[in-house]
């Protein structure tokens, strides 16, 4: 194909300019993608090339954008190390890459936008990260929310093969619906022919994953950042963000804002400025839910200056998660909102571990009782006693996230709880829900 030039002389994006990952306008085909970002940087060949790319990612300070905010380079190095060791020993050598775009957080939309608008940036990242850890196979996992997505991604993969771009064989896989199906061990389980539910770890995927091989699981946005770090370097990446949280990130802003949607920000932007970016409050606000249904409540206006970044939100008692922020209007019951989410989460348990199978519905029941009946001190005590009985007692972190959300609700909405206990439910408890909670056909199983 003549349209694709392989000498990368295209100008790099200005370091301070946003957005980086998602260009406004129509989705970028391969030609437009290479025009915007420049040619694919050299394939990380041999141990030296591999180490160099991982070192760049480390210097950039990139952390995973899927929710855990784990240092990406450490994960890559662990997989590369296991793969190399296994290749010499009796275990099966090689490695596998899973690009995780199965966005099961109902309040998040950023991976879907990224895969729709910039598929080749993700595919660049897949090729480079796979090269860096010595993976010969890659899986791009997506959910089924957009039925046309998998087909378009396959076409993008084919377009690259025709253009002769270096890379690995990429298989596009649609993962079953559900909150825990995109957890990394659940993806490994599914790709190994099992159900898409979490596994008991260790061994973690980086030790033994798909086909018994060391497996690197990265969120698709993380991989897109790797594609840019490989092109423009760690200094360029860190030109936005803060020293503690360098770089940019996609965030999904919802709730009572003028223009809900996906935005790319430099990490560390104050929460109030993010809300302004999303059109400002559409009603007086009382709190934001940061980190999605795995995160926590942050009160407003006290926390308006909280930096939107993993460390910033962690110190505010919430989390960055997959970059979800939902603005809760003042005319709203925080207990009722949280109770609806807990009911949903309880139904999303893989029902493998007892404390999660039985504990989450018990927590959801107690919270619903307090939200819509109130006047029951014993229910409040029961709820508080349940949280430590569920926290960190599952094979995966799903129940821990649900517990953290409830704990933050009891902290931030302590005044609401007082009133519900003394006077019964507030009038706002019967308002329609602000937080999106999917209702699967057939309801709770």
């Amino acid at each position: 194909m003549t349209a694709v030039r392989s000498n990368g002389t295209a100008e790099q994006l200005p370091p301070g300019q946003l957005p980086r990952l998602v260009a406004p306008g129509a989705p970028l085909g391969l030609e437009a993608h290479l025009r915007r970002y420049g040619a694919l940087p050299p394939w990380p060949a041999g141990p030296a090339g591999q180490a160099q790319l991982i070192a760049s990612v480390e210097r950039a300070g990139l952390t995973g954008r899927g929710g855990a905010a784990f240092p990406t380079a450490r994960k890559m190095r662990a997989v590369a190390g296991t793969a190399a060791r296994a290749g010499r020993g009796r275990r099966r050598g090689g490695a596998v890459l899973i690009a995780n775009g199965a966005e099961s957080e109902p309040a998040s939309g950023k991976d879907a936008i990224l895969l729709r608008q910039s598929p080749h940036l993700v595919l660049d990242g897949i090729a480079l990260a796979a090269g860096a850890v010595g993976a010969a196979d890659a899986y791009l996992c997506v959910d089924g929310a957009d039925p046309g997505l998998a087909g378009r991604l396959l076409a993008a993969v084919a377009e690259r093969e025709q253009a002769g771009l270096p890379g690995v064989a990429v298989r596009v896989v649609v993962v079953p619906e559900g909150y825990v199906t995109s957890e990394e061990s659940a993806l490994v389980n599914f790709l190994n022919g099992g159900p898409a539910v979490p596994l008991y770890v260790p061994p973690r995927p980086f030790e033994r994953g798909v086909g018994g091989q060391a497996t690197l699981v990265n969120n698709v946005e993380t991989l897109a950042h790797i594609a840019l770090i490989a092109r423009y370097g760690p200094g360029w990446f860190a030109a936005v963000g803060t020293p503690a949280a360098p770089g940019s990130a996609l965030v999904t802003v919802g709730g009572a804002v003028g223009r809900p949607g996906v935005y790319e920000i430099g990490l560390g932007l104050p929460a109030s400025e993010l809300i302004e970016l999303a059109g400002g409050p559409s009603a007086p606000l009382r709190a934001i839910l940061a980190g999605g249904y795995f995160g926590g409540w942050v009160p407003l206006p006290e926390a308006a200056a909280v930096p939107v970044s993993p460390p910033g939100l962690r110190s505010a008692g919430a989390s960055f998660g997959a970059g979800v922020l939902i603005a809760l209007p003042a005319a709203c019951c925080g207990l009722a909102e949280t109770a609806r989410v807990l009911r949903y989460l309880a139904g999303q348990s893989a029902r493998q571990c007892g404390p999660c199978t039985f504990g989450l519905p018990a927590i959801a029941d107690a919270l619903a009782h307090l939200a819509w009946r109130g006047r029951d001190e014993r229910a409040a005590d029961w709820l508080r006693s349940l949280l430590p009985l569920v926290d960190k007692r599952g094979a995966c972190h799903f129940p821990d996230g649900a517990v953290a959300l409830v704990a933050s609700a009891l902290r931030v909405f302590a005044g609401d709880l007082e009133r519900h206990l003394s006077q019964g439910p507030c009038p706002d408890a019967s308002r329609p829900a602000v937080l999106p909670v999917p209702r699967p056909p057939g309801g709770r199983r």
Partner: protein
Amino acid sequence: MSPAVSRVLRLNPIACDAHGVCAGLLPELVTLDPWGYPVIAPGPVPAELEEHARRAVASCPTLALRLERQAKG
């Protein structure tokens, strides 16, 4: 006086089916939650309970409980 290697009890919560045998054999370290699933006291298993811990591990009908080495420190 502490042994060179301490041991910790580790539960596979997916394998556990709440038979409760462990709590019966090792009540010093294992209690049951409201749904009958074991809650294990954190930290290393005291030397004087190690034999009992071993018995609890061996008696688990689903092999969900393990006694694992923990590096000293």
